[in-house]
């Protein structure tokens, strides 16, 4: 019997787990997939929004501003990359300027610090690669970028190191109220807990319905992206947004914390919550708008494209509530990543109100060793590490320079990487120019060996996403 079961191991569930791990409570994080951070948290813009977007007084505004203030410290403790690169919302004409004035006023009302509108001359110095047609921009110095899955993996790892459990491949299919809590089913399997947090993202409505709450729906809205080579990230310092219009927020261009350049997202309402296909129209839109924002977009150096699904709630705001020991975190669309640390704290407060006693653990450790500590070490430090563990002297992924030692650490540390995508998200191996062409056969071997699996059992991302279908001549 757990004290708290959290359904969904995206960034929101992860932040809840990590906040709870501070206290003397037994926590189980439940996830339907083979890894954490596979939903909206896998594929989004990775921006820590300053907080001028959401309407005054909304939950989105409240948690955005708080989350953005917390993010740097959370990242430091978890040893994940965070870069306060700043955001610009660019305007091309008088109409845009008016909207920017409104955003400025809204941001000020939301408590966002340092906002102002900059003119062309200043922008030319601030961001020389902006398109010549840009007239003015709202400058948000508190805007930042993170790596959403790195953050989530580290938060789950830190929660686990502090005693939380992770249950993967557990797709919640029914929930039953018991005398002193809930019984959560995935087919035949069951987990019991006194309290439940529903952080199931796109499926938070489905989970809510399992306890009879049909007050909201969540529908998917896809966002496609194009990611460019690491050689391109230095073209821009800030994240470049367009002025929002009736047509939506449009395509942004941003450096990533790993030095790539990202352009996207599109915005298309969907029916199917599983459909993360990219489209030719999507690529066209991204390329067209990005080229309007920024000079000489290096699309020829594209290394991959991907698509994420926003969990759009039917109320237009985050749906956050607690009743009968059941906390609902529904419709956490953008700025959900930014808000997650603050939502984690708030969900814990809600549980306390619901009767969960929170006694701080004596041995709680908020620090997690950086997954990228080796990569960032000096040559002397690296040689010290290699002396102790030779596998750090062997480069497996040549494009990203990832060593066998780092891959083994990702396979062995909480939460363990069980598949190729898991290794990729933890180490960046397979994420470079050749996209795993050279190193994936060897990583398959390491996964098989470390987890005691047959070579052909290794998957790309769990379930039946097998890399190989059998031995030669036997298929």
């Amino acid at each position: 019997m757990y004290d708290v079961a959290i359904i969904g191991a995206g960034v929101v569930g992860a932040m809840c787990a990590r906040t709870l791990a501070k206290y003397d409570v037994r926590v189980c994080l439940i996830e339907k997939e083979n890894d954490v951070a596979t939903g909206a948290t896998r594929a989004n813009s990775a921006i820590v929004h300053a907080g001028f977007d959401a309407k005054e007084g909304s939950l989105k505004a409240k948690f955005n501003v708080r989350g953005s203030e917390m993010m740097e410290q959370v990242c430091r403790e978890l040893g994940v990359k965070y870069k306060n690169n700043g955001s610009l919302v660019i305007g091309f004409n008088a109409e845009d300027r008016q909207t920017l004035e409104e955003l400025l006023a809204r941001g000020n009302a939301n408590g966002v610090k340092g906002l102002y509108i900059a003119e062309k001359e200043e922008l030319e110095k601030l961001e020389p690669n902006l398109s010549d047609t840009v007239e003015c921009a709202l400058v948000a110095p508190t805007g930042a970028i993170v790596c959403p899955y790195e953050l989530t993996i580290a938060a789950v790892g830190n929660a686990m190191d502090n005693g939380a459990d992770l249950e993967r491949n557990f797709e919640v299919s029914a929930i039953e109220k018991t005398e002193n809590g809930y019984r959560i089913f995935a087919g035949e399997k069951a987990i019991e807990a006194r309290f439940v947090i529903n952080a199931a993202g796109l499926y938070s409505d489905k989970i809510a319905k399992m306890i009879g709450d049909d007050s909201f729906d969540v529908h998917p809205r896809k966002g496609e992206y194009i990611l460019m080579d690491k050689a391109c990230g230095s073209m821009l310092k800030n994240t470049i947004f367009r002025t929002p219009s009736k047509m939506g927020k449009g395509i942004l261009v941003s450096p990533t914390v790993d030095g790539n350049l990202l352009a996207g997202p599109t915005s298309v309402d969907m029916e199917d919550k599983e459909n993360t296909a990219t489209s030719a129209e999507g690529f066209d839109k991204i390329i067209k708008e990005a080229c309007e924002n920024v000079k000489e977009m290096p699309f020829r150096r594209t290394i991959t494209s991907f698509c994420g699904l926003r969990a759009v709630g039917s109320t237009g705001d985050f749906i956050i509530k607690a009743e009968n020991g059941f906390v609902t975190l529904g419709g956490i669309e953008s700025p959900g990543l930014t808000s997650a640390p603050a939502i984690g704290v708030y969900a814990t407060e809600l549980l306390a109100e619901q009767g969960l006693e929170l006694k701080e653990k004596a041995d709680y450790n908020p620090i997690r060793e950086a997954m990228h500590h080796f990569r960032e070490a000096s040559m002397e430090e690296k040689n010290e590490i290699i002396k102790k563990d030779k596998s750090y002297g062997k480069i497996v992924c040549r494009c990203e320079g990832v060593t066998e030692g780092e891959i083994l650490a990702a396979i062995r540390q909480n939460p363990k990487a069980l598949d190729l995508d898991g290794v990729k998200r933890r180490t960046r191996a397979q994420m470079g120019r050749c996209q795993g062409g050279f190193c994936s056969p060897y990583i398959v071997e390491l996964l098989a060996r470390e987890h005691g699996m047959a070579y052909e059992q290794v998957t790309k991302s769990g379930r039946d996403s097998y890399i190989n279908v059998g031995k030669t001549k036997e298929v």
Partner: protein
Amino acid sequence: MTELVIIGGGPAGMSAAVAAYDAGVRDILILERDDSLGGILQQCIHNGFGLHRFGEELTGPEYAWRYEQQVHERGIAYKTGTMVLEVSPDKVITATNPTDGIFQIQAKAIVLAMGCRERAKGALNIAGTRPAGIFSAGTAQKFVNMKGYMPGKNVVILGSGDIGLIMARRMTLEGASVKAVCELMPYSGGLARNIEQCLNDFNIPLKLSHTVVEIHGKTRVTGVTIAKVDENRKPIESTKEYIECDTLLLSVGLIPENELTEGAGICLDRVTSGALVDQDRQTQIDGVFACGNVLHVHDLVDFVSEEAEIAGQAAAQYIADGLDTDMDAVLHTDGKIRYTVPQRITKAKDTNVYFRVADVYKNAKITVLKDGEVLLTKKKMRLAPGEMESLKLTAAQLAGAKEIKFGLEVL
């Protein structure tokens, strides 16, 4: 200080080492990231290597072994499992391996022989999902030939580069069914003999002017949509066709791996994506040479060895008493000829100039101009982008030239 450091222990690196040794250099070190010498040839278990060099049809590993033996016989030093991380403009090499850790070597001369990699799917922006079952042809080759596992049963191949063609045959022989090879261009990028022996002999359809427009499947590929393309290479909606398959192999081009070269500040040729070199395969930096697929993608290893010998011998001469120059001519092309290697001549000596054409041409004439005057012409029945060509220019022909231009005319 090491006299000659060779980066890459594939056929190019080994040939360069042997040639440099035979020209008198004794202090040679080959650095290879793989656990053994041989490079990509190790996984090329089909035959067809060495026809020009040895007059025999060898498999890839056999061809590599011949050179490996020569390396051993000469006692040339090498470190495998060693990845070079950086080459500085003043020839300091930083590398890492499990036993030495990260170390640096000052070299007197360097031969770059890092080979090439396959273009990945990302660069293509194919719409659809990203399930398991999408591999570059070379990765599939590694799974099958080196690991003994099948990456799929029902296969569509995009791109008709040589590795794709070879893998069409290999997958078929290992029990898979290859449904089609789609090629965006109206001609194949592979060798004519591979189309014959790998596709036609197995009744595998080659669909020219076709591409994959969408990938289907959530966890594993379940199918692809292909379409014919118009003359602007845009898919024609009405020709869309769904093919059920569990695997998509990509053979859409090879790119020389020149991250180290660029890091050293050496200029690359925009067409070859390899360094700009002179007749000795010397790059812009004195004492730094490049050869093999890192310089430009070859279709036959025989020519890699030949080119590497030029680089190895030149490196030896550079180490012994420096290279002398007596001219500085630039080689230009007219667009129908895409590139030449070398791109510069700094010494008038007999030189084979290698080049590739931009399209398939029948009954064409190649003209070489020296400072505007016709130096020589040569008629060719058939020229194709997939087949590298060469022309020999003699020392006398080259002497005193400022500009040499390669042009092509269809007769």
